[in-house]
Protein backbone atom coordinates (compact mmCIF):
# COMPACT_ATOMS: atom_id res chain seq x y z
CA UNK A 1 0.00 0.00 0.00
CA UNK A 2 1.29 3.50 -0.86
CA UNK A 3 1.13 6.30 1.71
CA UNK A 4 2.02 9.92 1.10
CA UNK A 5 3.34 12.17 3.83
CA UNK A 6 2.60 15.62 2.48
CA UNK A 7 5.73 17.65 1.88
CA UNK A 8 7.93 14.56 2.18
CA UNK A 9 6.89 12.14 -0.56
CA UNK A 10 5.48 8.63 -0.82
CA UNK A 11 6.35 5.38 0.96
CA UNK A 12 5.32 1.78 0.43
CA UNK A 13 4.05 0.00 3.55
CA UNK A 14 3.18 -3.63 4.12
CA UNK A 15 -0.48 -4.52 4.73
CA UNK A 16 0.54 -6.02 8.09
CA UNK A 17 1.52 -2.56 9.36
CA UNK A 18 -1.84 -1.06 8.55
CA UNK A 19 -3.50 -2.05 11.86
CA UNK A 20 -1.24 0.07 14.06
CA UNK A 21 -1.43 2.99 11.63
CA UNK A 22 -5.23 2.89 11.73
CA UNK A 23 -5.17 2.98 15.53
CA UNK A 24 -2.92 6.03 15.53
CA UNK A 25 -5.07 7.59 12.82
CA UNK A 26 -8.21 7.16 14.96
CA UNK A 27 -6.46 8.84 17.89
CA UNK A 28 -5.43 11.69 15.59
CA UNK A 29 -9.02 12.08 14.42
CA UNK A 30 -10.24 12.18 18.03
CA UNK A 31 -7.73 14.92 18.85
CA UNK A 32 -8.99 16.98 15.89
CA UNK A 33 -12.60 16.52 16.99
CA UNK A 34 -11.69 17.49 20.56
CA UNK A 35 -9.84 20.54 19.20
CA UNK A 36 -6.85 19.58 21.35
CA UNK A 37 -3.76 21.03 19.64
CA UNK A 38 -1.05 19.47 21.89
CA UNK A 39 -2.73 16.04 21.66
CA UNK A 40 -3.13 16.50 17.91
CA UNK A 41 0.59 17.32 17.54
CA UNK A 42 1.59 14.27 19.60
CA UNK A 43 -0.63 11.91 17.62
CA UNK A 44 0.31 13.35 14.24
CA UNK A 45 4.02 12.98 14.99
CA UNK A 46 3.51 9.46 16.35
CA UNK A 47 1.67 8.49 13.17
CA UNK A 48 4.25 10.09 10.86
CA UNK A 49 7.14 8.51 12.78
CA UNK A 50 5.50 5.11 12.46
CA UNK A 51 4.91 5.50 8.71
CA UNK A 52 8.51 6.64 8.19
CA UNK A 53 9.76 3.71 10.29
CA UNK A 54 7.83 0.92 8.54
CA UNK A 55 7.69 2.49 5.06
CA UNK A 56 10.06 2.23 2.15
CA UNK A 57 10.44 5.38 0.06
CA UNK A 58 9.20 5.27 -3.54
CA UNK A 59 11.57 6.50 -6.25
CA UNK A 60 11.14 10.14 -7.26
CA UNK A 61 10.04 9.32 -10.79
CA UNK A 62 7.19 6.98 -9.79
CA UNK A 63 3.68 8.08 -10.80
CA UNK A 64 1.59 6.09 -8.34
CA UNK A 65 -1.50 7.52 -6.65
CA UNK A 66 -1.51 7.06 -2.85
CA UNK A 67 -4.15 5.08 -1.02
CA UNK A 68 -3.58 7.06 2.16
CA UNK A 69 -2.39 10.63 2.60
CA UNK A 70 -1.08 12.26 5.78
CA UNK A 71 -0.79 15.96 6.61
CA UNK A 72 2.66 17.58 6.78
CA UNK A 73 4.53 17.32 10.10
CA UNK A 74 4.29 21.05 10.82
CA UNK A 75 0.59 21.38 10.00
CA UNK A 76 -1.62 22.98 12.63
CA UNK A 77 -4.94 21.50 13.73
CA UNK A 78 -6.70 24.34 11.91
CA UNK A 79 -4.89 23.63 8.66
CA UNK A 80 -5.76 19.95 8.80
CA UNK A 81 -9.37 20.79 9.52
CA UNK A 82 -9.41 23.01 6.43
CA UNK A 83 -7.83 20.25 4.33
CA UNK A 84 -10.44 17.76 5.46
CA UNK A 85 -13.17 20.26 4.73
CA UNK A 86 -11.88 20.42 1.15
CA UNK A 87 -12.10 24.19 1.33
CA UNK A 88 -9.70 24.77 -1.49
CA UNK A 89 -6.57 24.50 0.65
CA UNK A 90 -5.18 21.78 -1.62
CA UNK A 91 -4.52 23.17 -5.09
CA UNK A 92 -6.51 21.33 -7.77
Amino acid sequence: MIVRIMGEGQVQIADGDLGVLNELDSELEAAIEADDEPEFRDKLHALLDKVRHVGKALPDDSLEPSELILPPADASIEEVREMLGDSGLIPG
Partner: protein
Amino acid sequence: MSVMKRLSMIFKSKANKALDKMEDPRETLDYSYQRQLELLQKVRRGVADVATSRKRVELQINQIEQQSSRLEDQGRKALSVGREDLAREALSRRSSLQTQIADLRVQHDNLQAEEEKLTTASQRLQAKVDSFRHKKETIKATYTAAEAQTRINEAFSGISEEMGDVGLAIQRAEDKTAQMQARAGAIDELLASGALDDFSGSRNDDIQAELDRMGGGRDVELELARMKAELGQGPAPQPSLEQGQPQAQPQSQTQQLRQPGEPA
Protein backbone atom coordinates in the same frame (compact mmCIF):
# COMPACT_ATOMS: atom_id res chain seq x y z
CA MET B 1 -13.75 7.95 8.17
CA SER B 2 -10.07 8.21 9.00
CA VAL B 3 -7.97 11.30 8.41
CA MET B 4 -5.59 9.44 6.05
CA LYS B 5 -8.42 8.09 3.91
CA ARG B 6 -10.34 11.35 3.74
CA LEU B 7 -7.30 13.30 2.60
CA SER B 8 -6.61 10.70 -0.07
CA MET B 9 -10.18 10.96 -1.35
CA ILE B 10 -9.95 14.75 -1.52
CA PHE B 11 -6.84 14.53 -3.68
CA LYS B 12 -8.45 11.90 -5.90
CA SER B 13 -11.63 13.88 -6.37
CA LYS B 14 -9.59 16.90 -7.48
CA ALA B 15 -7.73 14.78 -10.01
CA ASN B 16 -10.98 13.26 -11.28
CA LYS B 17 -12.62 16.65 -11.68
CA ALA B 18 -9.72 17.75 -13.86
CA LEU B 19 -9.93 14.55 -15.91
CA ASP B 20 -13.69 14.86 -16.38
CA LYS B 21 -13.27 18.25 -18.04
CA MET B 22 -11.38 16.68 -20.92
CA GLU B 23 -13.08 14.95 -23.82
CA ASP B 24 -9.97 13.66 -25.54
CA PRO B 25 -7.50 11.99 -23.13
CA ARG B 26 -4.59 13.17 -25.27
CA GLU B 27 -5.65 16.75 -24.57
CA THR B 28 -5.69 15.92 -20.88
CA LEU B 29 -2.13 14.69 -21.08
CA ASP B 30 -0.85 17.76 -22.89
CA TYR B 31 -2.78 20.17 -20.70
CA SER B 32 -1.61 18.46 -17.54
CA TYR B 33 2.00 18.50 -18.75
CA GLN B 34 1.79 22.27 -19.34
CA ARG B 35 0.44 22.77 -15.83
CA GLN B 36 3.26 20.66 -14.42
CA LEU B 37 5.86 22.82 -16.15
CA GLU B 38 4.16 25.96 -14.82
CA LEU B 39 4.18 24.54 -11.31
CA LEU B 40 7.86 23.64 -11.61
CA GLN B 41 8.61 27.25 -12.51
CA LYS B 42 6.59 28.42 -9.54
CA VAL B 43 8.40 26.05 -7.19
CA ARG B 44 11.78 27.30 -8.41
CA ARG B 45 10.66 30.90 -7.91
CA GLY B 46 9.48 29.92 -4.43
CA VAL B 47 12.88 28.46 -3.57
CA ALA B 48 14.55 31.66 -4.80
CA ASP B 49 12.16 33.85 -2.74
CA VAL B 50 12.83 31.88 0.43
CA ALA B 51 16.59 32.03 -0.24
CA THR B 52 16.35 35.81 -0.65
CA SER B 53 14.53 36.13 2.68
CA ARG B 54 17.11 33.93 4.36
CA LYS B 55 19.96 36.08 3.03
CA ARG B 56 18.22 39.22 4.20
CA VAL B 57 17.90 37.83 7.72
CA GLU B 58 21.59 36.80 7.60
CA LEU B 59 22.51 40.37 6.69
CA GLN B 60 20.46 41.73 9.58
CA ILE B 61 22.10 39.30 12.00
CA ASN B 62 25.52 40.47 10.81
CA GLN B 63 24.58 44.14 11.19
CA ILE B 64 23.20 43.70 14.68
CA GLU B 65 26.20 41.58 15.70
CA GLN B 66 28.49 44.43 14.65
CA GLN B 67 26.47 46.85 16.76
CA SER B 68 26.56 44.45 19.66
CA SER B 69 30.32 44.14 19.42
CA ARG B 70 30.67 47.91 19.22
CA LEU B 71 28.59 48.36 22.37
CA GLU B 72 30.77 45.81 24.14
CA ASP B 73 33.89 47.80 23.19
CA GLN B 74 32.22 51.00 24.39
CA GLY B 75 31.29 49.32 27.68
CA ARG B 76 34.88 48.21 28.18
CA LYS B 77 36.22 51.67 27.31
CA ALA B 78 33.70 53.39 29.61
CA LEU B 79 34.70 51.09 32.46
CA SER B 80 38.39 51.78 31.84
CA VAL B 81 37.80 55.50 32.38
CA GLY B 82 35.76 54.92 35.54
CA ARG B 83 32.31 55.49 34.00
CA GLU B 84 30.43 52.44 35.29
CA ASP B 85 27.09 54.12 34.52
CA LEU B 86 27.97 54.42 30.83
CA ALA B 87 29.33 50.87 30.77
CA ARG B 88 26.10 49.57 32.29
CA GLU B 89 24.02 51.43 29.70
CA ALA B 90 26.15 50.05 26.84
CA LEU B 91 25.88 46.51 28.15
CA SER B 92 22.15 46.83 28.71
CA ARG B 93 21.69 47.94 25.08
CA ARG B 94 23.93 45.08 23.98
CA SER B 95 21.73 42.65 25.90
CA SER B 96 18.61 43.77 24.01
CA LEU B 97 20.50 43.36 20.73
CA GLN B 98 21.47 39.83 21.75
CA THR B 99 17.76 39.04 22.15
CA GLN B 100 17.12 40.39 18.65
CA ILE B 101 19.94 38.23 17.29
CA ALA B 102 18.56 35.09 18.97
CA ASP B 103 15.13 35.81 17.49
CA LEU B 104 16.58 36.35 14.02
CA ARG B 105 18.55 33.12 14.26
CA VAL B 106 15.31 31.21 14.87
CA GLN B 107 13.79 32.88 11.80
CA HIS B 108 16.90 32.06 9.81
CA ASP B 109 16.74 28.40 10.77
CA ASN B 110 13.06 28.22 9.83
CA LEU B 111 13.73 29.77 6.44
CA GLN B 112 16.63 27.41 5.83
CA ALA B 113 14.44 24.40 6.66
CA GLU B 114 11.73 25.72 4.32
CA GLU B 115 14.28 26.25 1.55
CA GLU B 116 15.60 22.70 1.92
CA LYS B 117 12.08 21.25 1.85
CA LEU B 118 11.16 23.16 -1.30
CA THR B 119 14.42 22.22 -3.00
CA THR B 120 13.72 18.54 -2.34
CA ALA B 121 10.10 18.95 -3.52
CA SER B 122 11.32 20.66 -6.67
CA GLN B 123 13.72 17.80 -7.47
CA ARG B 124 11.00 15.21 -6.83
CA LEU B 125 8.50 17.06 -8.99
CA GLN B 126 11.07 17.43 -11.78
CA ALA B 127 11.65 13.65 -11.78
CA LYS B 128 7.91 12.98 -11.87
CA VAL B 129 7.34 15.49 -14.66
CA ASP B 130 10.07 13.84 -16.76
CA SER B 131 8.52 10.44 -16.05
CA PHE B 132 5.07 11.76 -17.00
CA ARG B 133 6.39 13.19 -20.27
CA HIS B 134 7.77 9.78 -21.32
CA LYS B 135 4.54 8.04 -20.37
CA LYS B 136 2.43 10.65 -22.14
CA GLU B 137 4.36 10.31 -25.39
CA THR B 138 4.14 6.50 -25.25
CA ILE B 139 0.39 6.64 -24.63
CA LYS B 140 -0.14 9.14 -27.45
CA ALA B 141 1.96 7.09 -29.89
CA THR B 142 -0.04 3.93 -29.27
CA TYR B 143 -3.32 5.66 -28.64
CA THR B 144 -6.60 3.85 -28.79
CA ALA B 145 -9.33 5.30 -26.62
CA ALA B 146 -10.29 2.17 -24.72
CA GLU B 147 -6.88 0.99 -23.57
CA ALA B 148 -5.35 4.42 -23.12
CA GLN B 149 -7.96 5.71 -20.68
CA THR B 150 -6.90 3.50 -17.77
CA ARG B 151 -3.21 4.21 -18.24
CA ILE B 152 -3.88 7.93 -18.53
CA ASN B 153 -5.92 7.91 -15.34
CA GLU B 154 -3.16 6.17 -13.40
CA ALA B 155 -0.39 8.46 -14.63
CA PHE B 156 -2.57 11.53 -14.22
CA SER B 157 -3.69 10.66 -10.67
CA GLY B 158 -0.09 10.11 -9.61
CA ILE B 159 1.21 13.37 -11.00
CA SER B 160 -1.88 15.34 -9.98
CA GLU B 161 -1.47 14.24 -6.36
CA GLU B 162 2.18 15.29 -6.41
CA MET B 163 1.24 18.65 -7.91
CA GLY B 164 -1.37 19.19 -5.20
CA ASP B 165 1.14 18.34 -2.50
CA VAL B 166 3.92 20.53 -3.91
CA GLY B 167 1.43 23.31 -4.65
CA LEU B 168 0.37 23.32 -1.02
CA ALA B 169 4.01 23.27 0.15
CA ILE B 170 4.65 26.35 -1.98
CA GLN B 171 1.58 28.14 -0.58
CA ARG B 172 2.66 27.42 2.99
CA ALA B 173 6.23 28.54 2.27
CA GLU B 174 4.91 31.77 0.76
CA ASP B 175 2.79 32.43 3.86
CA LYS B 176 5.68 31.79 6.21
CA THR B 177 8.06 33.86 4.12
CA ALA B 178 5.58 36.74 4.01
CA GLN B 179 5.38 36.74 7.82
CA MET B 180 9.16 36.73 8.12
CA GLN B 181 9.51 39.42 5.44
CA ALA B 182 7.23 41.61 7.53
CA ARG B 183 9.41 41.04 10.60
CA ALA B 184 12.57 41.61 8.60
CA GLY B 185 11.04 44.86 7.34
CA ALA B 186 10.31 45.89 10.92
CA ILE B 187 13.96 45.29 11.87
CA ASP B 188 15.08 47.33 8.85
CA GLU B 189 12.84 50.16 10.04
CA LEU B 190 14.36 49.98 13.52
CA LEU B 191 17.81 50.12 11.99
CA ALA B 192 16.80 53.04 9.78
CA SER B 193 15.08 54.96 12.59
CA GLY B 194 18.04 54.60 14.88
CA ALA B 195 16.13 52.62 17.53
CA LEU B 196 18.79 50.05 16.72
CA ASP B 197 22.12 51.85 16.50
CA ASP B 198 23.41 52.57 13.05
CA PHE B 199 26.56 50.46 13.00
CA SER B 200 28.06 52.67 10.32
CA GLY B 201 28.65 55.24 13.05
CA SER B 202 26.94 58.02 11.09
CA ARG B 203 24.22 58.38 13.73
CA ASN B 204 24.87 60.41 16.82
CA ASP B 205 25.68 57.79 19.46
CA ASP B 206 25.25 59.22 22.96
CA ILE B 207 27.57 56.70 24.66
CA GLN B 208 30.29 57.31 22.07
CA ALA B 209 29.70 61.07 22.27
CA GLU B 210 30.20 60.97 26.04
CA LEU B 211 33.36 58.86 25.69
CA ASP B 212 34.63 61.17 22.94
CA ARG B 213 33.92 64.22 25.10
CA MET B 214 35.78 62.66 28.01
CA GLY B 215 38.61 61.65 25.72
CA GLY B 216 38.68 65.10 24.15
CA GLY B 217 38.65 66.84 27.51
CA ARG B 218 41.43 64.58 28.71
CA ASP B 219 43.47 65.33 25.59
CA VAL B 220 43.13 69.07 26.25
CA GLU B 221 44.21 68.60 29.87
CA LEU B 222 47.15 66.41 28.79
CA GLU B 223 48.21 68.94 26.17
CA LEU B 224 47.96 71.74 28.73
CA ALA B 225 49.97 69.75 31.28
CA ARG B 226 52.59 68.98 28.62
CA MET B 227 52.89 72.68 27.74
CA LYS B 228 53.14 73.59 31.42
CA ALA B 229 55.91 71.01 31.86
CA GLU B 230 57.76 72.46 28.84
CA LEU B 231 57.51 75.93 30.34
CA GLY B 232 58.61 74.59 33.71
CA GLN B 233 55.28 75.45 35.29
CA GLY B 234 54.40 71.93 36.44
CA PRO B 235 55.24 68.22 36.51
CA ALA B 236 55.21 66.07 33.31
CA PRO B 237 51.72 64.72 32.54
CA GLN B 238 50.63 61.11 33.18
CA PRO B 239 48.93 60.13 29.90
CA SER B 240 47.26 56.95 31.17
CA LEU B 241 43.47 57.10 30.95
CA GLU B 242 43.23 54.66 33.85
CA GLN B 243 44.82 57.28 36.17
CA GLY B 244 42.93 60.15 37.70
CA GLN B 245 39.31 61.25 37.49
CA PRO B 246 37.44 61.84 34.26
CA GLN B 247 37.20 65.48 33.25
CA ALA B 248 33.61 65.33 32.07
CA GLN B 249 30.92 65.22 34.68
CA PRO B 250 28.85 61.99 34.61
CA GLN B 251 25.41 62.59 33.23
CA SER B 252 22.78 62.51 35.92
CA GLN B 253 20.78 60.15 33.76
CA THR B 254 21.91 58.04 30.83
CA GLN B 255 19.80 58.54 27.75
CA GLN B 256 17.28 55.91 26.93
CA LEU B 257 17.17 54.19 23.54
CA ARG B 258 15.05 56.24 21.18
CA GLN B 259 11.85 54.68 20.04
CA PRO B 260 11.12 54.37 16.32
CA GLY B 261 9.64 57.62 15.06
CA GLU B 262 11.14 59.72 17.87
CA PRO B 263 13.22 62.64 16.66
CA ALA B 264 17.00 62.07 16.74
